[in-house]
């Protein structure tokens, strides 16, 4: 106890006036902790907001969705007895602004008189929903999303044709309580009454229509038990039931994924900051070499020296952690302000101690991982030096105990990364990546320095001095290249991935993708539809295939609720999927295992399955998949696996049935039309939707533009977060410049004494920092390009294109940072008068 008390007392004394030495330390630590705490707090706030407003988002305590068909009467009656029920019908439909006006695809929602059960619709003008949708003089009312007004050039009072009926626009939607954020929206919302829907003539057998039943249960009701009983009573219903526990599952998954990613970005910033922490601690301890030697001379054991400075560093770490946590804690209100109107629920303000605690832990462990090494080395200060004029810091490695402690801290950091991301594969990739990048940066810098050292010495003295400064003893080149380079690597990787994805979406995919998908084609419309489309000049290709919706209920006999699919294919088992049947192998399909069925196959149900989804579900040829199709369970055997290239945007299906199973089920047909040129495209849409009002046209270009917009928004968010890493790198650079200040002043004075002009000294420093910037840019661009190449070609299976702009940006930032900060730091050195410094020497 006395030992710790004495160490604490000594640490307190050593803290006096030393805060200035730790500015970079505090900045690096606070930045990393703030990033992790901020990301975690915002994520927690969003989850809290979603669960708080879950009833509103869900539209009740329970939401049941059925595809293609309504709920059986007995089940519907049971629902009515359980609580208040609201029914809604959703589908995609084409709309037209009046007769002969513009057409566009919308998401149509037909609601009953009690909608919404929870929350309230807000309309502009502010009239009740029932009043807005009521029938007036034989015309039904509709309320629309403001974006549809802009797209079609319509306003309140105008007519809107949907299917066979002209609706009157009565108001614009200001708020739809149960509308969650969805990334795959095909068009703006149009809301009408359920009573008006039959007038459109859009709902026919096989149409892609979803029926939603929202139930407000009386309190108290054990909702999970109720769902279980209700499900058990109708085992073959084939519906999807959600409760407030998973009101917005897709969005929550998205938040979780983004949080994971941004936490790792924050951790990268913290690791980069760790270099700054190590530099700051080393630089501070170097300054304290005399004090440490004196303490040892007076009888302080090495362990006491270590403990004293460890306490001091951890006290300072606490300051950094508190600053970072405070910044992280104000992230939710800031985000709430930024996302007001975009996020479907209000982000609740509050202190989210869990993510902040985790960020603080990250901060402390990172400090330990990076500070123990220089602290351990400090105890090796030789007190005998006190008899000499110059007391110099020790070099070499610390004692094995401190190396082991550093390793333990590094392992703890890795364990925290596992815990924080909750995804062992992702965490492992991150850890291996981080170690790999450290090795590559360390090795790359050493190699480049060795090359520079071996180059013939330039004749120009300024140039010679600049190059020598890069590799002289105690140079900061490796730590600057590593820290600034890491930030730049993240930036260049993000820039390259974004560039390549945008390139795919805007350049590559449109080359092979169809122009339109037409959905809800009735089987009897196929022939006239085909004749019409083929008659349009510029149509190069037309494909159609039957489609019915169904969902997996069992995999190899195991109920889907008990199956744990790989995360990357979870989408295939979440909700309904399109199913089709085919006699022949589709044109672009590649069978990778098993054989396609014979043309004249007749027998028990067989399916051809997506090879990737099969892998993720752990099934193969001979296994069975049970699907619920329109309330009927069909168990089919997998006979072959196909490789599907989703990037072609062709008509690909995870499940393709052999003939003889789905033909009898009510279904519609989906068609892909490849048209060349804008004129042909417009003609296709105009003529088809004019002649067949029930057929909806999805323009692929619009969908791609939508995807590109989302990508742009995500890229901005990612790049902003990646900038945190770069900022940490710049802090480290600033720290290194400050630490080298004393040496610069000394060098500048000596050079001036020896007759160098300020201009010459300045030139030398300028060249040194420019080379440093270039070195950093070369290593960062190389590593970033390799990482980008890996992500694009291996993970996204796309063609990789190098972007000169991304590389140029990296070089510019590197040069601007090193030269700017370097010269800012050396300006004082140039202005120093020689005499006072020499007198002190």
């Amino acid at each position: 106890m006395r030992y710790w008390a004495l160490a604490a007392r000594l640490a307190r004394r050593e803290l006096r006036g030393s805060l200035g030495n730790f500015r970079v330390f505090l900045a690096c630590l606070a930045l990393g902790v703030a990033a992790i705490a901020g990301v975690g707090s915002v994520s927690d706030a969003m989850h809290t907001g979603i669960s708080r407003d879950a009833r509103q988002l869900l539209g009740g305590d329970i939401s049941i969705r059925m595809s293609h068909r309504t709920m059986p009467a007995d089940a519907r009656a049971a629902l009515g007895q359980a609580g208040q029920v609201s029914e809604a019908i959703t589908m995609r439909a084409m709309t037209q602004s009046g007769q002969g006006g513009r057409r566009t695809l919308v998401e149509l929602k037909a609601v009953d008189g009690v909608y919404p059960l929870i929350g309230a619709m807000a309309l502009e003008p502010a009239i009740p929903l029932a009043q807005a949708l009521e029938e007036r003089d034989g015309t039904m009312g509709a309320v629309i999303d403001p974006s549809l007004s802009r797209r079609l050039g319509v306003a309140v009072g105008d007519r809107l044709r949907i299917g066979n009926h002209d609706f009157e626009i009565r108001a614009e939607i200001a708020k739809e309580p149960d509308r969650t954020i969805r990334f795959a929206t095909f068009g703006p919302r149009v809301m009408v009454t359920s009573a008006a829907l039959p007038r459109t003539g859009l709902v026919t057998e096989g149409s892609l229509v979803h029926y939603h039943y929202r139930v407000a249960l009386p309190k108290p009701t054990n909702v999970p038990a109720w769902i279980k009983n209700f499900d058990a009573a109708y085992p073959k219903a084939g519906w999807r039931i959600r409760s407030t526990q998973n009101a917005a599952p897709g969005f929550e998954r998205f938040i979780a994924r983004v949080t994971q990613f941004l936490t790792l970005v924050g951790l990268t910033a913290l690791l980069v900051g760790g270099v700054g922490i190590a530099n700051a601690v080393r630089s501070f301890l170097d300054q304290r070499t005399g004090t440490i030697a004196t303490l040892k001379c007076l009888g302080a054991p090495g362990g006491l020296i270590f403990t004293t400075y460890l306490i001091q560093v951890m006290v300072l770490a606490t300051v950094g952690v508190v600053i970072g946590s405070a910044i992280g804690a104000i992230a939710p209100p800031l985000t709430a302000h930024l996302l007001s109107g975009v996020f479907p629920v209000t982000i609740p303000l509050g202190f989210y101690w869990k993510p902040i605690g985790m960020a603080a832990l990250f901060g402390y462990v990172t400090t330990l991982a990076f500070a123990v090494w220089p602290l351990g080395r400090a105890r090796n200060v030789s007190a005998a030096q006190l008899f000499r004029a110059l007391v110099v810091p020790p070099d070499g490695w610390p004692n094995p105990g401190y190396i082991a402690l550093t390793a333990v801290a590094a392992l703890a950091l890795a364990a925290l990364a596992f815990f924080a991301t909750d995804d062992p594969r992702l965490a492992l990739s991150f850890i291996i990546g981080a170690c790999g990048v450290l090795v590559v940066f360390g090795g790359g810098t050493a190699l480049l320095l060795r090359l520079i050292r071996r180059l013939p010495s330039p004749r120009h003295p300024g140039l010679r001095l600049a190059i020598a400064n890069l590799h002289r003893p105690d140079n900061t080149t490796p730590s600057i290249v590593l820290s600034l380079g890491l930030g730049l690597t993240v930036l260049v990787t993000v820039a390259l991935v974004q560039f390549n994805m945008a390139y795919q979406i805007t350049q590559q995919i449109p080359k092979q993708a169809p122009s339109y998908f037409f959905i809800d084609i009735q089987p009897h419309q196929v022939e006239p539809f085909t004749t019409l489309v083929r008659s349009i000049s510029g149509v190069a290709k037309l494909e159609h295939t039957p489609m019915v919706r169904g969902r997996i209920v069992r995999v190899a006999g195991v109920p889907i609720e008990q199956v744990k699919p790989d995360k990357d294919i979870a989408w295939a088992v979440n909700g309904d999927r399109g199913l089709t049947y085919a006699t022949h192998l589709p044109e672009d399909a590649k069978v990778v295992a098993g054989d396609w069925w014979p043309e004249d196959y007749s027998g028990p149900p067989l399916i051809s399955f997506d090879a990737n989804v099969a892998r993720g579900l752990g099934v193969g040829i001979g296994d069975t998949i049970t699907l619920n199709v329109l309330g009927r369970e069909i168990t089919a055997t997998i006979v072959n696996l196909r490789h599907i290239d989703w990037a072609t945007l062709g008509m690909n299906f995870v499940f393709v049935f052999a003939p003889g199973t789905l033909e009898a089920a009510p279904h519609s047909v989906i068609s892909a039309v490849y048209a060349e040129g804008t004129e042909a495209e417009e003609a296709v849409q105009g003529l088809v939707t004019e002649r067949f009002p029930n057929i909806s046209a999805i323009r692929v270009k619009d969908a791609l533009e939508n995807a590109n917009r989302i990508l742009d928004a995500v890229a901005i968010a990612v790049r902003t977060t990646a900038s945190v890493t770069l900022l940490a790198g710049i802090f480290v650079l600033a720290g290194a410049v400050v630490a080298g200040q004393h040496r610069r002043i000394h060098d500048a004075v000596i050079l001036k004494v020896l007759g160098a002009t300020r201009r010459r000294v300045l030139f030398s420093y300028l060249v040194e920092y420019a080379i440093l910037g270039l070195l950093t840019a070369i290593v960062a661009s190389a590593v970033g390009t390799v990482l980008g190449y890996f992500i694009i070609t291996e993970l996204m299976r796309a063609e990789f294109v190098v972007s000169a702009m991304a590389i140029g940006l990296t070089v510019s930032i590197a040069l601007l940072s090193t030269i700017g900060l370097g010269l800012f730091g050396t300006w004082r050195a140039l202005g120093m008068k020689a005499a006072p410094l020499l007198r002190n020497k």
Partner: protein
Amino acid sequence: MTIGTVDPSQSRHDAAQSIVDLRDVHLNLRSAAGEVNILRGISLDIRAGATVSIVGPSGAGKSTLMMIVSGLESASSGQVQVAGHDLSALGEDALAEFRRDNIGIVFQAFRLIPTMTAMENVAIPLELAGTGDAFRQARESLGRVGLADRVQHYPDQLSGGEQQRVAIARAFVSKPALLLADEPTGNLDRTTGDSVVELLFDLQTRHGTTLVLITHDEILATRCDRIIRMADGLILAEPTSSDTTLKTA
């Protein structure tokens, strides 16, 4: 964890005995240029309570001899017995505790800790030894060197002479058996230096401490009982003295 594993019974030495006993001490260091022989066979016996000055040109090995005696440097060979301890048998931490309990050192460059007040600087050896009333003793020690009114001052708020007085107070506060002073007046002007020397000898007499003093100042050297001359890592010659025994030259 505790501080202080050196047997206290060994730390206070009988006045009649040798406090420093070196036998054929060599120190060889490796450098880029090859092996350098810093000390080349030093044997020296200093009786407790004596005052000894060590003189010689730069590079003679005077400071290195001090380092060996204080346990800050390990001899390459030979026997080093100080205050009853065989220093070659002690580890790093035990040597630190040995210094804490037996040795006081005054440096030419004062070596005060800049972040600590005068009183804290003086109290440090006592705090390290776990002395309960470290600050009271430190205050008294500062009073004895004439700095009672400067106890809360930081080193950079004190003059060179005052800093050296603080260093002397620190060296004497734990009543060490052996005081090593390395050019204690080297950074001071003549007048200040003289007063510091007076103080040093006054305290030495009062405490009966053995004083080993490195100096370039011949007049100061003659104030000691014994003068040892060194050059090139060897002890050259020494006037006869009742307190010293020259064994090897």
